[in-house]
């Protein structure tokens, strides 16, 4: 990156460290933090939308819809989530390829499951075998996001369902007495009030989501854990910057990163909770009212 770094064997001390920390691979490492943040930024709203849909379905008066909603929320209980993560990615991948296969190669006669192998016609490979590396990486990332959203959507559905139940019945009945339709009650009374009940659960979920991001590594995305292992490993003198096994320091750095994220989230969530409690019929809302008076 810098001109002085052209020949690393000639420099030493802080300058060496500066050059070492700005190599191309390290820049990739720093970008991978962005990958994690993008994952969080994309997954959180998607999971919330899935959760909202799940909670609405679980409250539906139509039996099949309700069963789907309840089944979705019940899915995550009792089974380690990492099993879901490993399972979903393969299942999704195979599901997509199978669907594409049915569309593009209707006259393919060989069975798709040949004993131990999953074989679709070459046109149905997603992404195409000839696609550039970046497309493959993007596809892997998209699969990971979808998996995260599905699993965390189920958790969020649980939380939102509970929050919808927690809104005082009197509020809903009053709204109905004023002649609002079911839809209006839902939109104007239930949804604005449920957030304060949902916030502790959703905040918890957000923390869990932050702490789940290293699982990206298991899903084959080149995330911060991948780079920490790659860069930290001992480098012989065949490399430009030889050093012993430094993985410990890289992981300490990751640990510090996660602790900062947690602390930051805690602060933001407590502010948000105070903001949402304003004017609500809860103990926190009452405390705010008294403090203001």
């Amino acid at each position: 990156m810098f001109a002085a770094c052209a020949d690393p064997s000639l420099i030493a001390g802080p300058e060496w460290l500066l050059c070492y920390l700005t190599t191309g691979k390290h820049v990739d490492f720093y970008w991978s933090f962005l990958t994690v943040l993008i994952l969080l930024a994309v997954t959180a709203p998607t999971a919330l939308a899935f959760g909202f849909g799940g909670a609405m379905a679980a409250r539906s008066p139509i039996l099949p819809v309700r069963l789907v909603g309840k089944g979705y929320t019940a899915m995550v209980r009792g089974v380690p989530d990492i099993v879901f993560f490993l399972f979903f990615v393969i299942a999704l991948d195979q599901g997509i390829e199978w669907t594409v296969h049915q569309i593009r190669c209707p006259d393919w006669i060989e069975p798709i499951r040949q004993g131990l192998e999953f074989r679709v016609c070459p046109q149905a490979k997603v992404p195409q075998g000839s696609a550039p590396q970046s497309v493959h990486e993007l596809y892997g990332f998209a699969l990971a996001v979808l998996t995260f959203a599905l699993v965390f959507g189920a958790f969020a559905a649980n939380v939102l369902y509970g929050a919808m139940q927690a809104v005082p019945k009197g509020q809903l009945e009053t709204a109905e007495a004023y002649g609002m339709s079911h839809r209006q009650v839902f939109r104007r009374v239930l949804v604005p009030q449920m957030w304060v009940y949902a916030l502790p659960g959703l905040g918890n979920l957000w923390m869990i989501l932050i702490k789940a991001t290293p699982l990206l590594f298991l899903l084959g995305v080149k995330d911060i854990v991948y780079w920490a292992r790659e860069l930290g490993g001992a480098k012989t003198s065949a490399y430009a910057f030889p050093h012993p096994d430094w993985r410990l320091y890289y992981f300490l750095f990751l640990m510090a990163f996660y602790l900062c994220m947690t602390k930051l989230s805690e602060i933001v969530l407590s502010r948000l909770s105070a903001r949402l409690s304003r004017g609500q019929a809860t103990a926190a809302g009452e405390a705010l009212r008294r403090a203001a008076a």
Partner: protein
Amino acid sequence: MTCAETIAAYAFRSLGYGERLLPRTDFTLCQQFTLIGSGMIWNLYFGMLALAAGFLLANAVALAKNARSPLARVPADWFVFIFRGSPLFIQFFLAYEALVLLPRNGIVILGMTTEVSWLSRAWAGALIVLFLNTAAYSAQIFHGALKSIPRGDLEAAEAYGLTGWARFRRIEWPTMLRLAWPAYTNEAIFLFHATTLVFFSGFPAFQQRGDALYYANYFADKTFNPFIPYPIVAFYFILLTLGLIGIFGFVNRRLNRHLPANVQARIRLRPQLIR
């Protein structure tokens, strides 16, 4: 191979007994059930030992967090924050890298050479991480319970002349446990779920002796079919969860036995997942 022979060959494969070679072709359902079940031994081992040891440490940390002196409170707060604030996954990696760096020939303490290489093996290293992790999570639960002991109970204890250690042992501690128990049950369940991370993070499986997920992943990789091994893991874990709820429910009833039925705390399973 009949199913009985498979069970005889692989039931303790995860501990290194029985058939050495894992099946390579013609996978049967029986093999998958047996090997994954064999891996469950490790999940049980990690879960039970970490839970038992973590319970003791969690009590101490909760008390330290509640202490007035900052000398006790600040380290306890940091301990809880570090282990609750970072992913268990990273903790495993970090612990492995740190333990590998220990000198190979042992450490000399007071002129005696102590062997330390066993610390970097999963059975010890991962157990330590899980133990500290569950201690931090449980300490937070116990601390919350300690804070919410009804004031009337404490005043009544004082009125009867119970102070200091006697008050703690007879009033505060049992009440804390009773209040914390439903949340602690969840913690125990999710600790068992977290044991699946051991062989997926830093700690390598020695001679293919892994846990349930390790073998499930082996089968999924070999057969390209995730629809059999992973549901088997899920099946085992649902059984384990039901068993845990049974045991913890029994303790919960005992902790609540002096209370009228309508105020007794019920255990509710809450999804609280990944750490």
